[in-house]
């Protein structure tokens, strides 16, 4: 293990990302100043709302949980050079399938129900995202566009089923499936207000990192992402790699949907379509697709989103303020892609 070399390799992205976040903070500070608020106070409020107390920490972590999982939907295919933005569809289909699975087994013990829900949700989400990967490989259909279209189709399928075949007649104003039963809900981690979904998110990211960085499979995927021709000449089954990676990525999204149903809503309805998939894209880009980096980035973004309420009350800033901040961060991070390899000091150290 030559740790120093790895450290230097990690130094460039670390410095560029920290630098980008600082630049974003300056730009956003200028923006709120133009809107008539004091930037220093705004940042102080955001810090308090996101990380200032154990209550706010828990709020932040609850919001970060689905983002950890949906970020994997974009991050893992990213290793293969694919830009997939279908996390929203995987969440919706996974959550719907998990809820329907639970409703078919009214008498089973909760542990069996929850395991089945997780399994069915992950398979459904995985297949949904793998469609985009398969179309890419076998029909050369652009995966970004097809996954975007599949998001809309998933939402239509959800809305259709919860307003027709699987509708609970008592859900008048907000068409939903029947409730999966209070006994089947995922409980809280003892001593906290956090549900177990957070653990799922962390475990999923760690496993995904292990898969992509410590296995032959992950190594093959990175080669295929670098150069498809070279991978094919080396005898790698590129099509199978794409299908499996997209399936695993979609399974993470499906699990996020299952957690939404089993830990929060208890039913499948259009609240599944809460833009977690789109926020996950941002997390994946900021984390540069690295599953371990997704964890802190998801917490950071969860914190930013958690602070919107207090920003409104303390500074009379509209709740869209955090959207503007996310947009600025996103744009600056993407712009920073052009900076890689331009700092010769970092390069030399990296080679040494």
């Amino acid at each position, binding site marked *: 293990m030559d740790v120093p070399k790895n450290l230097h390799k990690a130094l460039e992205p670390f410095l560029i990302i920290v630098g980008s976040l600082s630049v974003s903070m300056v730009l956003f500070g200028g923006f709120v100043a133009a809107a008539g608020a004091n930037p220093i106070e705004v940042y102080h409020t955001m810090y308090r709302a996101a990380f200032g107390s154990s209550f706010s920490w828990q709020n932040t972590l609850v919001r970060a949980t689905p983002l950890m999982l949906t970020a994997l939907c974009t991050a893992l295919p990213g290793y293969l050079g694919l830009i997939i933005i279908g996390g929203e569809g995987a969440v919706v289909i996974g959550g719907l399938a998990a809820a329907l699975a639970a409703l078919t087994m009214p008498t089973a013990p909760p542990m069996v129900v929850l395991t089945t829900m997780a399994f069915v949700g992950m398979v459904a989400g995985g297949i949904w995202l793998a469609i985009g990967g398969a179309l890419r490989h076998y029909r050369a259909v652009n995966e970004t566009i097809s996954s975007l*279209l599949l998001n809309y189709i998933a939402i239509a399928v959800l809305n259709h089923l919860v307003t027709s075949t699987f509708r609970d007649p008592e859900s008048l104003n907000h068409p939903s499936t029947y409730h999966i039963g209070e006994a089947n809900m995922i409980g809280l981690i003892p001593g906290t207000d956090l549900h177990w979904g957070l653990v799922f998110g962390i475990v999923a990211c760690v496993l995904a990192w292990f898969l992509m960085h410590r296995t032959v499979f992950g190594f093959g995927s990175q080669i295929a992402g670098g150069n498809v021709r070279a991978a094919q000449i080396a005898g790698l089954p590129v099509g199978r790699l794409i299908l499996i990676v997209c399936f695993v990525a979609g399974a993470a999204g499906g699990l996020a949907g299952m957690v939404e149903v089993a830990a929060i809503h208890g039913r499948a309805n259009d609240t599944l379509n809460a833009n977690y998939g789109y926020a996950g894209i941002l997390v994946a880009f900021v984390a540069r697709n690295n599953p371990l980096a997704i964890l802190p980035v998801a917490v950071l973004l969860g914190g930013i989103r958690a602070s919107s309420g207090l920003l409104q009350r303390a500074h009379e800033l509209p709740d869209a303020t955090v959207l503007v901040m996310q947009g600025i961060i996103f744009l600056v991070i993407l712009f920073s892609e*052009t900076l890689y390899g331009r700092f010769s000091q970092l390069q030399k150290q990296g080679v040494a």
Partner: protein
Amino acid sequence: MEVGWWGVLIAVLGGAIRIGTPFLFVSLGECLTEKSGRINLGLEGTLVMGAMTGYAIALHSGSPWLGVLCAGLAGMLLGALHSWLCSFQRVNDIAVGIAMMLFGTGLAFFLGKPYIQPSAPRLPSIDLGGWSHVPQLQAALQINGLFLIGIIVAIALRWILKNTSWGLKVRVVGESADAARALGLPVDRIRLLSTAQGGFLAGIGGSYLSLYYPFNWSEGLSSGQGLMAVALVIFARWQPLACLWVSLLWGGAAALGPALQSVGITYGYYIFNAIPYIMTLAVMIITCSPRRNLLGAPHELTITR
């Protein structure tokens, strides 16, 4: 009800024009941008920003047409920002588009907060159905000037791309940036202008939403019209005139669900709404192939590689 099933047809016709107009503007904008070899996925943000700007300016100035113009200018700025960011090495245009979507909608919601309550002056409509005695037909043929302008823009864009030196430059840059550089063409500047003009059109599409139909400003105003511009242009095979027909088709498809609901058919409402997306996906599956490029697509476009 003597109109009955005819009513469905008329409602779909009216919907094709009424719902299709914003599709027309965003797809023409996206078409021009993509002809120059860039893809702008951020037109959703541009559209929402245009809707907000148009509404706010119309409210303050009392002139809806000034609102339309300013909506276009706001869209132009967002398009220019997109293109400027993409002109740097290794900056991915698809990813920047997703970010611009977030940034544009966020900015519009932020600045538009004070305009949710007050009501701005509406764009006037033109009655083409005065000859008819059927109220439904009269309503369907009540159209907006922007629709006619959109038709003119579609024809003009086709002519410009085909017959002018500017159009030729855009197409060369879109087909091969290397060839364009060899000819001494300023690739980045041509793409900047094309994307900015594309943003201008998308901004106008947004002002149609807030100033004519559905005629309000709220955070739920757009139902993803800007996002779908990319799919629409693929469907239209990068031809401005085809953008017109495809927009009408999508507007009609979107009106089908509510129209059937009015005659008592409620089953499948959401599935009808998804028809345009399913159709686009089907067209892409049928026409794409690993052995050749997407037919009619500019070669520099990242989505065809």
